[in-house]
């Protein structure tokens, strides 16, 4: 895949501006590694990758590849204390983009191919409708606005917000809050350990929504006309049902509580499992 490796070095003293063009097929793959600084990517309609950036003194910029796949990365002058490099990149809109940073925020818009975005503690922001989006952070927040068909977002302590629709969406945190809005959703799964979950959106008639948490609160709001069946089980938490008249019943052996209820015509299946987080179900106008 890597036909030729082009090396571009910068003088050790001054901050260097770089600009580089690399041919890349409309559905080619492009890989970016920039640990510190920032990475902004736009999708465009050319079969070229354009990279513009400002390198920190002493850092080196490497880029190269072929028409089907290319990559670029920044090599830091001092690995122990890397200085920021800010990058702005244009890639073919249907490209498959892979980005990895440590603390550099990642901001992608207009890329419809596939996105694989990884950071340790920076924020990931995606706008657009990629076919596939996989975004992972340890300590960073993830914000997605748009309608990726397939979506997986993971952060341990960062928060995840999503505004849009998806046919297969997954959201996972340990302690970060998860906020999902919009829809319609065909399949969505939200999983936290202690992070609070808010869902306010539409679900397809054949859709399924699953919410799993240990102690985070779960607040689900669906539009009035939704047809869905709810199944909520809690080992030690409370269930508040404002979506229908049904009241929660005591769980097995009198511990915890559970609720099974339907609204509208049979349709979507919404399930909630929690150890001790409070659950609230509501309907919106």
């Amino acid at each position, binding site marked *: 895949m890597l036909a030729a490796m082009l090396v571009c070095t910068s003088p050790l003293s001054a901050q260097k501006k770089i600009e580089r063009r690399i041919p890349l097929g409309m559905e080619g793959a492009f*890989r970016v*590694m920039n640990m510190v600084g920032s990475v902004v990517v736009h999708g465009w309609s050319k079969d070229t990758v354009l990279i513009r950036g400002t390198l920190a003194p002493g850092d080196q910029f490497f880029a190269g590849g072929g028409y089907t796949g290319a990559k670029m990365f920044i090599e830091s002058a001092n690995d122990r204390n890397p200085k920021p490099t800010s990058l702005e990149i244009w890639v073919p809109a249907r490209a498959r983009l892979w980005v*990895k940073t*440590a*603390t550099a925020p990642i901001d992608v818009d207009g890329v419809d191919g596939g996105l694989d975005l*990884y950071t*340790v*503690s920076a924020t990931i922001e995606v706008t657009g409708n990629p076919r596939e989006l996989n975004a*992972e952070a*340890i*300590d960073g927040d993830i914000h997605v606005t748009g309608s990726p068909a397939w979506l997986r977002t*993971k952060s*341990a*302590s960062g928060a995840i917000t999503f505004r849009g629709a998806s046919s297969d969406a997954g959201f*996972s945190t*340990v*302690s970060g809050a998860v906020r999902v809005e919009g829809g319609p959703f065909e399949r969505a799964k939200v*999983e936290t*350990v*202690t992070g609070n979950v808010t869902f306010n959106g539409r679900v397809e008639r054949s859709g*399924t929504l*699953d919410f*799993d948490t*240990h*102690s985070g609160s779960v607040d689900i709001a669906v539009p009035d006309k939704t047809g869905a*069946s709810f*199944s909520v*089980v809690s*080992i*030690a938490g409370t269930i508040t049902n404002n979506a229908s008249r049904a009241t929660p019943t005591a*769980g*097995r*052996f009198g*511990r915890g509580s*559970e609720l*099974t209820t339907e609204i509208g015509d049979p349709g979507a*299946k919404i*399930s909630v*499992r929690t*150890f*001790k987080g409070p659950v609230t179900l509501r309907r919106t106008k």
Partner: protein
Amino acid sequence: MTHEVIRHLLDDYVTGELSEDARGPVADHVAVCEICSAEVESLERILARASELPKSIEPPAEAWSNIRTAILREENSAAAHSTRTATPAFWRRPWVVTAAAAAAVAVLSSTITAAYLNSRSHTSSASITTSETATPATLAAFTVEENNYLRQASALQDLLDQQETALAPETVAQLKASLRTIDEAILEARSALARDPSNKLLIEMLSTNYKQKVDLLRRSTEMTRGT
């Protein structure tokens, strides 16, 4: 015994560790020697102050939670590395390790276990809390799965520990906090399961927690590696 010799015996004399034979002569000398009696008094003062030092000092409040966290990790590792039975250390209770359970573990294949744990059709969700009497096989099956997770988690944890210096200290702290959060959830779910061993929901929750832990560890080790 001369003064020069006795001078060096005064320490033991004061703490009563001198031999019977030597006590007499030393005592006699001390009675008439100003230097030595001053020395004896001074030693007695030091020892008195030593004995007055508080026997107990209150440790900082967070010490216990650090110990507890480390112990939880130990327990998870120990269970994973245990070569005795498939029973995790936490559940060393007689009624869990029944002959039937042991046999069930041997019979069940991991694919069956995986299929059981991964199945989440809605009908099974709804029936989770119906009164089904659990067979020992259910718990035993989970035990096998749990050990797999514990082994993976342990191996990944070791890998992560080696790479710790590659991550910023704040990130390491945040990561450890997240792992602790998951461990606490695991502990709560396990305690509940120990009291209510036929609760399939708890088994599924525990399984989810383990998956989360292994996933977080795996992701973290991958973050520090270049590509």
